[in-house]
């Protein structure tokens, strides 16, 4: 994962999902390869714990590594986090799995227990607990590495991811003769069911547990009109303290100079950022100042009757037009990766 490939759009929330889905897919493939190609003959009762642990570890590692990559942490730090995530998620998954396995032995009747303990029985009823425990283990691993921040998101997200993976595995692996689920289960194949399981687990986990934080981005003002096209300034302070940046044609002290020929006044407008990284545009001139966004126009002209300037919040992609007619300058507000600074 690379922050430069993740523009500040809604799609950025899917990138972690795709990244973790790849990890889920590859982990399923890895276990399958061990069995099919390397012919490792562990007992069939180990299939469940090994698969659940591997997918849990891989997805957890992908999430932690993805975050470390986005934050450009030092390599040794990334390695340490990855090892920690893998170790914790793997071991915790095993613990959870075996606790569940032990509980099943206590709760179920003897007749059902025979089915539950059949290592070859393809049944969501008797496997759903394993998926849930795997998901929880996966969430716990990342939760510990992220120093217990957002526990609900991690645990509930992990649990949901595991359960969704179980459902995907069940639906994709139904026998061909079973038509009860109709279009919900268009593909019937136990081979592909494993792939569907890995992908769903990773995708849901990436989507639900950790989203790319805004702190990885900073706001910029960038000139769009021909004179000074492409000139840009960052808005945030390096220490993330609240800050205000000024735009005008006054040659000294302002943050972004725009020529008077473009209809820009000496001190035309400013953009502020607060300690919660909320951006606001302020009109400081009585001359036309317009913020444009989809289906919305906000006039920020200074009104002398009001004690304070007119403000509007800014979001990435908003355009600010200073002046009007032939004499106007256009600036865009855009959120770019912090490393651009």
């Amino acid at each position: 994962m690379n922050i430069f490939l993740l523009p500040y759009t809604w799609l950025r929330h899917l990138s972690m999902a795709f990244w973790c889905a790849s990890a889920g897919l590859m982990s399923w493939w890895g276990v399958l390869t061990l069995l099919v190609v390397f012919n490792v003959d562990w007992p069939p009762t180990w299939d469940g714990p090994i698969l659940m642990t591997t997918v849990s570890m891989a997805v957890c590692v992908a999430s932690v590594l993805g975050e470390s990559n986005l934050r450009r942490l030092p390599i040794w730090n990334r390695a340490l986090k990855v090892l920690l995530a893998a170790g914790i998620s793997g071991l915790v998954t095993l613990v959870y799995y075996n606790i569940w396995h032990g509980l099943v032995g206590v709760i179920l009747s003897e007749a059902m227990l025979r089915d539950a303990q059949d290592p070859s029985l393809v049944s969501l009823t008797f496997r759903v607990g394993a998926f849930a425990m795997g998901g929880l283990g996966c969430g716990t691993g990342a939760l510990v590495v992220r120093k217990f921040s957002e526990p609900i998101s991690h645990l509930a997200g992990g649990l949901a991811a595991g359960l969704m993976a179980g459902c995907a595995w069940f639906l994709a692996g139904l026998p061909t003769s079973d038509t009860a689920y109709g279009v919900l289960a268009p593909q019937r194949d136990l081979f592909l069911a494993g792939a569907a399981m890995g992908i769903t687990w990773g995708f849901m986990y990436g989507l639900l547990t950790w989203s790319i934080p805004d702190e990885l981005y900073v706001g910029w003002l960038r000139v769009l009109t021909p004179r000074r096209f492409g000139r840009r300034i960052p808005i945030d302070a390096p220490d993330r303290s609240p800050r205000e940046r000024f735009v005008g044609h006054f040659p000294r002290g302002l943050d972004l100079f725009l020529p008077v020929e473009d209809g820009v006044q000496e001190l035309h407008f400013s953009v502020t950022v607060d300690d919660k990284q909320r951006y606001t545009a302020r009109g400081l001139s009585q001359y036309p100042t317009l913020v444009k966004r989809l289906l919305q126009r906000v006039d920020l002209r200074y009104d002398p009757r009001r004690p304070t300037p007119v403000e509007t919040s800014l979001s990435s992609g908003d355009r600010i037009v200073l002046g009007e007619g032939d004499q106007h300058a256009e600036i865009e507000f855009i959120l770019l990766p912090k490393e651009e600074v």
Partner: protein
Amino acid sequence: MHPLRRLLPGLLAALTLLLTVGCGDVRYIAIPGTTTRITLPVADAGKEYEMQILHDIGDCDSLGIKEEDMHLCLPYVDRASGEIRLAYNLLNRDSLASLPEHEEMLSVQFQGTTVETGLAGQEIKVIPHDPWSESGTLYILVIDGSGSMAETSGRGGLTRMQVVKQALKRQDVVDAFYGSGKGDNAVMLLQFTQGDPRPVGGQLVALKNRREYKAAVSQLQVLNGYTHLFDAVKYATGPLLQANAVTEVLRGGRLKPNVIVLTDGFNNERASDVCGDNLERLDLLLEHLNEVQLTDITKRPQVHTVGLGKPIRPGFELPQGNTKPTAADLCGRRNVDTRIDGELETRGIDNASLHYIARSGGGKAHIKRGRKELAKAFQEAASPRYKWFEARIRMDPFYLRRAFKIRLSLVGVANAGATIEIFPSAWLDAPPGRKMDDGWHTEDTYLRTFVVVLPLFGLFVCLSYMGAAMHNTRRMLFGRVRRGQTPPTDPPAAA
């Protein structure tokens, strides 16, 4: 306390549990190329043969199985098509035994239920592999010489005896008897009516070459008299094998006896015989054949029956298991008291008895009409023995989604059985089998997994660039990227 320290006891417990769960006395064997595990197959104890279900590449190697057949030698479960494949061979006191084709004689039990071809999508197919060429065969042809063989068979005005002679002289039949095996095959030709069968030409000789054989076939003739079929079979599988001329040929297990009996009607010993009279005689014969099947394996004959004509019970099928025949089995309830001579034998041949005899004799019954079909029957009866076999079983795929036991047992041709427990993985499966020309499936290559993994992985890589691509495309379309510009203007220098 550091959170990791709190977790430590739990982690250690998990490791211990992992090592204990699933560790038992049972030894599981992973089948290469699949996600299936099996336990060691168990052969039935106390049977004359030991059935060995092949499960290890070493077993296959020791049988000398060709490289291209090696994958057929190991157990395989295709859960997409519901097919199971097991390969097996027979051992007799630790030495490899050969078997002829025996599809009808293999009984398969799935979780204690007998699998029957045609029932609820079930199917069993037995495929022989590697013809046994270490020893030859002594074919003992016992041909019906009763008066009915002088009747015309319907086509070309040939008598039945002439049809038989032409079929026996066909090149493909002669080739089948004197095939390309390393062992020297031989043929003995006998005819029967009443009493013991008589050697053609008067003397019991093993015909060791094609010229002698063809000369002997030319001497076949209608002898007239009743059809003592059961006596003939009993003689050919009993006293005949003790005759000097035969024991000399069979000495040391150099050749194995294969009795082929041809008739065109019913066992008919008296003019007053009715169909029901044959029941007790058949019982006695079957008892004799069952005893013969327990004799020294190197001298034990295999018995094939060939019926020339129309079957009196066209839809007859042998009942499962070693059940005794009933009078109704032989010629139908209505014909139990019908006379054979001049009545039943004019309507057809006693195909049911021929099936019973063949089953107890470890061979096959062939009911044919016409020269070509008869020739085919002789070829099939002279079919070679094989080293190992594939049993292909088709079930409803639903039943293959848990651990299951399969039991293979042979009846008639040999007495043997074995059980194997199969554990397909609940969680993982290799790619579904590839359909072969015969409609059955075989393992697909592992490379097939790349067909799934690589495109999906590629798709995720592409999707991870999608955000950047869409963002930049949109900015380009909305004119936010560089276009033809005037040079940038710097702010004026401060005064």
